[in-house]
């Protein structure tokens, strides 16, 4: 039985599942030193061979690459939607003497949900190039990968090391 993430609804990795028959739950157990995969799409071939590929690691790469590619695509879409650039926009003269510009899907406002420590969300509206950055930050918080600061001298601390609150970046 295939895992749920290989269901037809999860179309991003469907091809990978069908091709390899490898459960994603296993595929996600990639070697810890393969941290560059999320940042780039690696085709099969030389790069894979150098990494001593096994079916499992190949599966992991394919899955992560597909996810990374989809993430990049969505980020690119978001940047385009919230772009405030007028580069390439054209003023069209209308028969009644008025002027029209097709905004080409730009100048849109975007609502983003940032998770709070109590499970609720803070919803904020963004425009401009920073919207994608804010969405990534919200996702990092949700995924628990937001960077956290470390006190310089914790040796003298009488406070046990505790997870930093979400509000403290």
């Amino acid at each position, binding site marked *: 039985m295939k895992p749920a993430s290989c269901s037809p609804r999860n179309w991003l990795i469907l091809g990978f599942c069908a091709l390899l028959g490898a459960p994603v739950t296993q595929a996600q157990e990639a070697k810890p030193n393969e941290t560059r995969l999320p940042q780039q799409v690696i085709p099969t071939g030389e790069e894979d061979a150098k990494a001593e590929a096994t079916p499992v690691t190949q599966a992991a790469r394919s899955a992560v690459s597909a996810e990374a590619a989809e993430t990049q695509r969505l980020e690119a879409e978001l940047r385009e939607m919230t772009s405030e650039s007028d580069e390439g926009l054209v003023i069209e003269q209308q028969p009644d003497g008025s002027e029209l*510009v097709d905004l080409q899907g730009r100048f849109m*406002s975007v609502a983003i949900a940032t998770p709070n420590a109590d499970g609720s969300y803070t919803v904020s509206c963004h425009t401009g190039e920073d919207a994608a950055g804010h969405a990534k930050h919200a996702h990092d918080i949700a995924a628990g990968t937001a960077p956290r600061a470390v006190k310089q001298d914790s040796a003298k601390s009488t406070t046990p090391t505790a997870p930093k*609150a979400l509000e403290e970046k």
Partner: protein
Amino acid sequence: MRRFLLAAAIAATTLLGTPAAMAQGSIIIVNGDAPNEGFNDPTPVAPVAGNPFTTRGGQRQFVFLFGADIWESRLQPTNDIRVTARFEPLGPNVLGSAGAVTASRNFPGAEYPDTWYHAALADRLAGTDLVPGFFDIRALFSSDFNFYYGTDNNEPPGTVDLLPVVLHELGHGLGFANFVTEATGSLLLGGADIYSQYTLDVTTKKNWNSMTNAERQASAINVRKVSWDGVHVNKNVPAVLHRGDPALRVVNPGGLGSFAVGLATFGPALTATGVAAPAVLADDGVAPTGDACEPLPAGSGTGKILIVDRGLCAFALKVKNAQDAGAKGVVVVDNVQAAPPPGMAGVDPTIVIPSVRVSLNDGNTLKANLTDLRLKLFIDTGILAGMDRVKRLMMVAALNPVVAGSSISHFDTAAFPNQLMEPAINADLTSSVDPPQDLTSSLMTDLGWFTDADSTPDGRDACIGSDLRPGVFIGTCNANTNNIMLPPGGCTLSDELNWCDANTTNHDAYMQCVRSHTANWVRDWFITSTNRQSILACAAGNTD
């Protein structure tokens, strides 16, 4: 008047629901989703408060139509507004988006020349669909996010209420937004826009359309000094905003004034009386010593307000450590450039002292004036929550840095009660866009959604829906007086007389109002004494 179009059926104008007579337009949501996706998602779900549909797609349709109906009933568009809408994957934590598809300028009915208007608003002012075949608004919402599809604004934990998000984003598409690149100050293709016409920097006293790019760029981060200069928003501000603005006042040394503060979700609320005390830097003895992440020396804060640096531990822990050291209050200084200062989240029921957060710049100002520094944390009841302190106008959201989020195209976060069009879409919002809950419809009025075509731009026009008949009539009585437009514009003689009728409770008071107005008009040479006698005679007979 519910409408929902299938994209494929647009050409045949197949409507699910019947549009009204063409005298009034509708907001038409055009379903751009493929079968079994988004609005057509057949996943069975249980009906939820106010939403009777039993599929996810049906519930999404219902919420969109509910939001569209709120805007439609309020704006009463004269032409159909077509919104192309889809639910699709938008990336993690992205809920949805909307915006105008096109912008127009110099069309018949435009209140300002050479000024860009959002498509739907331009159609309203022109009284016709200026760009047939184009959608007016584009909306994309997330098919992945766990939305709440009820209409009672009572979303359970872990979900986001879809309705206010739809209302908010559609509001942007309807005109509540500029076309400025705020990071650089540049205008859309070098042209002014209608939203910027009423965006006033109260420091420079210039509106955004009158500025250079550099001036706009600077204004975008002139925190709490950029306001909305339209008459209808500001007329309704007293009916909507509550009195009292949280503030930190520098009591000594003099001349530093008051600083904006972010509030904590823990500890007691600030009061009008407030807490006033000498202020000193906290020192926990562990580098960096000013963050109060470690217990402070016993008694080091007794009778004082402690100034604490943000970072490295939770806000509540800093305040608790200060409280344990005897402090009366805490000022947390931000460690990044962010103004106005955001709030401080956290929970600790044992905290009994007030705390606030100030911007990095303001915090540095405090640190540079530590000698005999004395602060007061309080609610300033001399001002409405959301008004600027210079011209007492409703503020829009100048944020510093501007890239921290969408800024000027929103009301300021200081507004209380929270407004639909603040940058944060708060959980306590109602679905109202009108006073006394909300100022959004007032801003739409300023933009021109209710134009009376009297040649005075609506944001400067105190009399929307003017009586523009050439002569003055009181009831059916002809006062034989030209119904001129009074300076500075927007109100005719008849408008003023109608105001007397609507705002007095008995005939004597009404006649006193008419006598007073007409005496002024004679004095200012707007009418003759003969005109006045004629008006008074008609008014005397107006006993309805």
